[in-house]
Each structure stands twice: as structure tokens, then as C-alpha cells.
């Protein structure tokens, strides 16, 4: 592990909704009636089975309740031990998985109000992402516009797998709103399970489902670049969350090679994908999928060709590392500082607006 820099900014933590009942005060009368009358189940996604080892570090499990559902525990487990100055809450409660567009919007609204009242109001080190109903771009934009004045919301949160590839024009109103408000779009691992997570159908094991997230991020990046999202919205920042990152150079080599051969198909992509991604895309550092030696990591960083792309994250409470070994071995002090402080600050403009 590399030593941490005090005052780091954790760009991916996961406060958990303890149960659906906790959202009741924030739901409209209509949706609260629906929950009660129709017996709506908890909205925990199959992306993180409750007792799977990955879902929570053993020492971060709570005696009662879901990991990540208690503010005091989160302070003691996620903030203090790492000397964290600010942490961005990405709530993964499955409101984006509902099939009803209106229900998705109603629940996203409740979730965001719950985050603001139960977490942001109580702990000044916390910031949050706006969970948007990806089911409908118009409703998503309404939610962004509603919350954008609150500068503690620093990002828009989407899932890497939903109805359509993320570069499609279906989602462009969200990107337009993001650019307008200076909010990066955070794309998190996970799926609405509208399609199998692999192109070869539904895999047998959870292990495969989690492995498939990296391929999904590769496809999402291809889509965002090829559809011209960064041509249309040049100031848009996209942050890949819990994506892994070691796959990025090889993917860009391939995408850029095919762009050279096929750019007549996507003439609006007016620069090499490698250059576009280097400028507009950032990735969180946890999970760090290898490589096995510091020398190889050094080589990989050279393949990145930039020390501005990686952002510090613990992925709390998911079990990605033990103790305080968040960062891979062999990072220079300068690089650690960039990853933990400078890169998050330049990615999330609102962090510096709200912190003196």
C-alpha cells in the first residue's frame, strides 16, 4: 500500500437506506400509499447480495441493519480512519431499476431528500450525487433542476447498464443539464437488468456478474465517445465509479484503432478517443484490479499517459481492501496527492465552491 495523504476526498462511498420505511416521510402521499397498499418490497438490487463477502467488509458490518446505514458508524469507519475531509455519497438503492417511469421519479425524489436530510444536514464532510430516474430523461432533468441549487449535490448518478447504451440521444437531456449546472455525471457499476449483463446471456455466478461490470464500462465509454456526447457537450465530465480502471488503456488502444479505420461512420468524433477520454473522463481507484507488482503498475500508469484521471475512493462499505490499504503499492507522494486531493477538486467544481 501507499501512504495516504491527510485531507483526502473520497469520491465513492455508499450510505445505505436501512429499509423502505425510512423513505416514507420523503415519499408523496400517493407513493406512500402504493408502498403500503401494494406491499412493495425492499429495492435492494441483486448487484450486491446482502451477505456476499464483497457487499461489506466484515469489520464494517453492523450489529443491526444494513452496512452503511448508520451515520456514526460511517464516520468511524469511512471518514476518520482515512483522514477524509470530504466524501461523496452514491446511494445505490434500486430506484433506477423500477419499470414505471413515474414510480422511478417519485422514489428518486424521496431518496435524494432523504440523503439531504439524514446525511448531508448532519455531517458537514458529506456531499452527495443526485440519483436520477434514468427511466425517463425528462423526469431526470426535472430532478436535476430541483436539486442543483443545493451545492452539496456535486454529481448526477447513473448506472452503467440500463435500457440503452449510455451515449444514445435518449440520455442527452441529462447531459445537457449536467453541463449547464456544472455537475459531473457519475456512472456507477450496476444494472437495471433490462438485458443480460453479458452479451452471451445470463451468467451462472455472482462472481461473473461482478466481473462483467468492467466490460459494461468499456461498452459505455465506447457509446459515449462514438455517439458524440463529448462533441456535443465538451465541458461534460464523466466519472466512472467502482469501475475498475486497469482495463482502460487496452480499451482505448482498441477503440482508437477502430476509430482510425471507421471514423467515416462517426464523423463527429473529431479527435482520437484516447484524447477525448483523457480530457473528459475520470475513474475512481477502488476496486484496484491488479496488476500484481508495483513495476507493472508503473507501466500501466505510463499507458494511461495522464496522472489526472484517477480519483481516490474507498467504496465503503464494500470489501475491496483490508485495513487502510486503499491505494496500490509504489505510488509516488505526488501521485497520491493528485489522486486524493487535486484530481477530485478539479473534477468536482462544487467541492471548492462549498469548502473554504
Amino acid at each position: 500500500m501507499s501512504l495516504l495523504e491527510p485531507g483526502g476526498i473520497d469520491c465513492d462511498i455508499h450510505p445505505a437506506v436501512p429499509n423502505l420505511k425510512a423513505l416514507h416521510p420523503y415519499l408523496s402521499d400517493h407513493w406512500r400509499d402504493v408502498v403500503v397498499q401494494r406491499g412493495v418490497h425492499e429495492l435492494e438490487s441483486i448487484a450486491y447480495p446482502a451477505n456476499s463477502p464483497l457487499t461489506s467488509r466484515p469489520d464494517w458490518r453492523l450489529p443491526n441493519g444494513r452496512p452503511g446505514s448508520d451515520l456514526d458508524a460511517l464516520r468511524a469507519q469511512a471518514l476518520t480512519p482515512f483522514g477524509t475531509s470530504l466524501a461523496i455519497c452514491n446511494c445505490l438503492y434500486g430506484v433506477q431499476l423500477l419499470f414505471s417511469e413515474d414510480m422511478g421519479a417519485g422514489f428518486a425524489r424521496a431518496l435524494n431528500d432523504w440523503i439531504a436530510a439524514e446525511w448531508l444536514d448532519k455531517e458537514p464532510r458529506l456531499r452527495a450525487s443526485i440519483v436520477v430516474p434514468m427511466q425517463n430523461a425528462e423526469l431526470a432533468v426535472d430532478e436535476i433542476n430541483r436539486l442543483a441549487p443545493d451545492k452539496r449535490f456535486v454529481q448526477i448518478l447513473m448506472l452503467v447498464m440500463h435500457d440503452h447504451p449510455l451515449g444514445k440521444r435518449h440520455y442527452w437531456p441529462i447531459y445537457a443539464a449536467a453541463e449547464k449546472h456544472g455537475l459531473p455525471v457519475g456512472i456507477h457499476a450496476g444494472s437495471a437488468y433490462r438485458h443480460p449483463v453479458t452479451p452471451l446471456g445470463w451468467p451462472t455466478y455472482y462472481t461473473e456478474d461482478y466481473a462483467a461490470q468492467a466490460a459494461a464500462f468499456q461498452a459505455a465509454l465506447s457509446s459515449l465517445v462514438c455517439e458524440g456526447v463529448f462533441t456535443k457537450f465538451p465541458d461534460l465530465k464523466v466519472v466512472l465509479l467502482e469501475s475498475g480502471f486497469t482495463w482502460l488503456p487496452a480499451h482505448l488502444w482498441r477503440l482508437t484503432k477502430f476509430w482510425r479505420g471507421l471514423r467515416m461512420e462517426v464523423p463527429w468524433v473529431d479527435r482520437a478517443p484516447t484524447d477525448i477520454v483523457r480530457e473528459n473522463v475520470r475513474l475512481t481507484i477502488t476496486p484496484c484490479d491488479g496488476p500484481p507488482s508495483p513495476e507493472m503498475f508503473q507501466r500501466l500508469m505510463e499507458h494511461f499517459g495522464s496522472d489526472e484521471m484517477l480519483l481516490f475512493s474507498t467504496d465503503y462499505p464494500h470489501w475491496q481492501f483490508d485495513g487502510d490499504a486503499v491505494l496500490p503499492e509504489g505510488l509516488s507522494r505526488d501521485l497520491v496527492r493528485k489522486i486524493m486531493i487535486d484530481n477530485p477538486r478539479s473534477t468536482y467544481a462544487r467541492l471548492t465552491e462549498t469548502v473554504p
Partner: protein
Amino acid sequence: MNVQVTARPTVQSPATSKLAIADGDIHPQRNSYKDLFPYMEARWVEMAKTFGSRPRQAYQAGPAYPKGQPNASRRDAWPPEGGRPGSSLAFLQKQLLDENNIQLGILNPTGDNGSSFQNREFGNGVASAMNRWVEAEWLTEPRLKGSIVVPYEDADAAVAEIEKWAGDPRFVQVLMVTRTANPPGQKQYWKIYEAAAAANLPIGVHAFGFGGYPVTGSGWPSFYIEDMVGHAQSSQSFLTSLVIEGVFERIPNFRLVMIESGFAWLPPLAWRLDKIWNRLKQETPHLKRAPSEYIRESVWLTTQPMEEPQPREHVLDAIDWIGWDKLIFATDYPHWDYDDPTQVLPMPLPEQQRRDFFFNNAMKLYRQV
């Protein structure tokens, strides 16, 4: 491949240009279904004429993503005597084998080959005919070796086809594609791998195909470029399924060749699988070793379309991490994204590495020595 005038490759010495080459991916093409009729049962000829192939995709005549070039082919690969690129043995001998000093060429008859038609019985008939066609019309050239086309969605029929050709040294691998209808590590496919291992044949899995599901977990993308880039993700899913389901553990002598999906994606995938397996191994007690160990031991990859980073030397790191004994050079003739053996590694290399990469690895894998 791309030839960039801004970064000219170093001039190859005459000794280098005479290197013997093995080509792990050559595509023989039929001009039409009629070419197959002499090798098909009458009922399947009627089916082909009346209903056509009915692949798991939208169009009768071509893919829903228009290719980058007509027939996805090099502009100069149309045979002078007429017909589609890749349809003329004589022209292929001249343009590909002789010009590049290719001593071993692996034929992969992909495309409309029966291996995943919606009508499986019909597909079985077409796959069978493809193998007879390759035998009769292509394997007369001793530098060329065949891959056995199998209808892999019907494992019993695939096994029968493997057993039919297993003793014929002109066929050196069993051919599948990455876009299977179900995750390929699942039990329904194991018989195929067992039959291949019993026959001492590797499974060659070529990118592409129509399994029925979108190429991304988030639906169908808009463009051919995304479909093409997506084959690397399909290949990652293919390999993940085989590893995690324990195919490498369960079937000794199982060897896998990943064809036309590039290769630089492999090291990060292996690292990721090791990491996840370490955390979640109680889900997969059938795995006795780390995923990367199975991969290091039993997986080969053909090189095309070879990744082209800037600077190009970065690709050597990826090869180091995979192992110089595991890559099989391939051209993908006659397709438009053909890789030229004189230009894919435009940097100085130890002679032994160069020879392994371009020739020896394939000769060993396909037991030609």
C-alpha cells in the same frame, strides 16, 4: 490495421522479411449457398432455397451494422477471375500465402456457416456441409489447415461433427464464435469441450456471431465501430464464463484459442478475475486455482486486430504480461482490418521472440512440429 504515415515503421531487414509466417485466421468465403449444395442433403438444399438461414439477427442478406467496406474486405482482395474476396484458392495462394511466406494458415469459415441458426437441425446440416466444402475445395493446399465448424448450440450434433473429423490431420481445431446463445461455460456446452480435448484439438473461438443478445449489457449500440470494439467485451465474457464455471478445471487437456479479438484486454481481465475470485471463492468451490493460472496455462490468442497504442512500444508490455509463447500472429485475410506481418511489430525485437510470435507458437499449438 492502420498504417500511419506520421510514424513510419522501421525498415525490415531482408532476413526479417524472409521469416516464415503462420497465420492463425484466414477466412475462406463461399460465393453463394449454391457452392454448398453439392455437400448438403436434398432436404437442406430445399430449406436453404425456401427459407434461408434465419440467423439470430434482423436481415436475410447482411448484418444490421453495415460493414466498413463491401464484404468487410480489403479493396484489393477481389479475385481477378470474379467472385467474392476469399472465394478463390488460387488468388489466396498468390496474394496471401506466397507474398507473405505463410507456411501454415488456419482456415476459419465463419459467417453464415450453420453454427447458430434458429433452426438447429438445418444448422447442423449446413455446418456439416461447410466442413465437406472446406475439405474438398481448400485443404488440397497443404499449407492450409481447417477448423471444424460445429453447431455448438446443439452439443450432441457438435460432438458428432468433431468425431467425424477427429482423425483427419488436416483439421487442427474446433471452431466456435464468442456470441453464444448462453454463457459458454455452462454445462450444455461441456460435451463439446470434452470431445475436442479427447481429439487433442483446441477450441478456437472466433469473435462475432449472433447469439441473440445485445453486444452490451445496456442494449444494442448504434454503430458498427461499437459492435467491432464490443467483440473484445464479448471475448472477455466468453473467457470469464469458461474460467468461473470451471471448464479448465474439469476438462484436462482443454486448450482455448481466442481469435480476432485482439489481446491487450487479457491481463487486466485476469487481474480482475483473481481479485474477485479471492473475495468470492466460496461461490465457486470447483475452482482449485486462481483464474489467472488457468488462463496462463491453457489460453492462446491470435493477434489481429492488434492493438496500436501511441507509442507502439506499449503493446510489448501487454505481450510480456500475457507471455510471448501465447500469441499467434493472424492476418484476418481477406477482411478490411487485415494485419500485415511486416508492420504489426515495427520495433526491434529479439529474433527468438519474433520467430515465436510469427511462427513457432502456432506450429506448436497446432502440433505441426
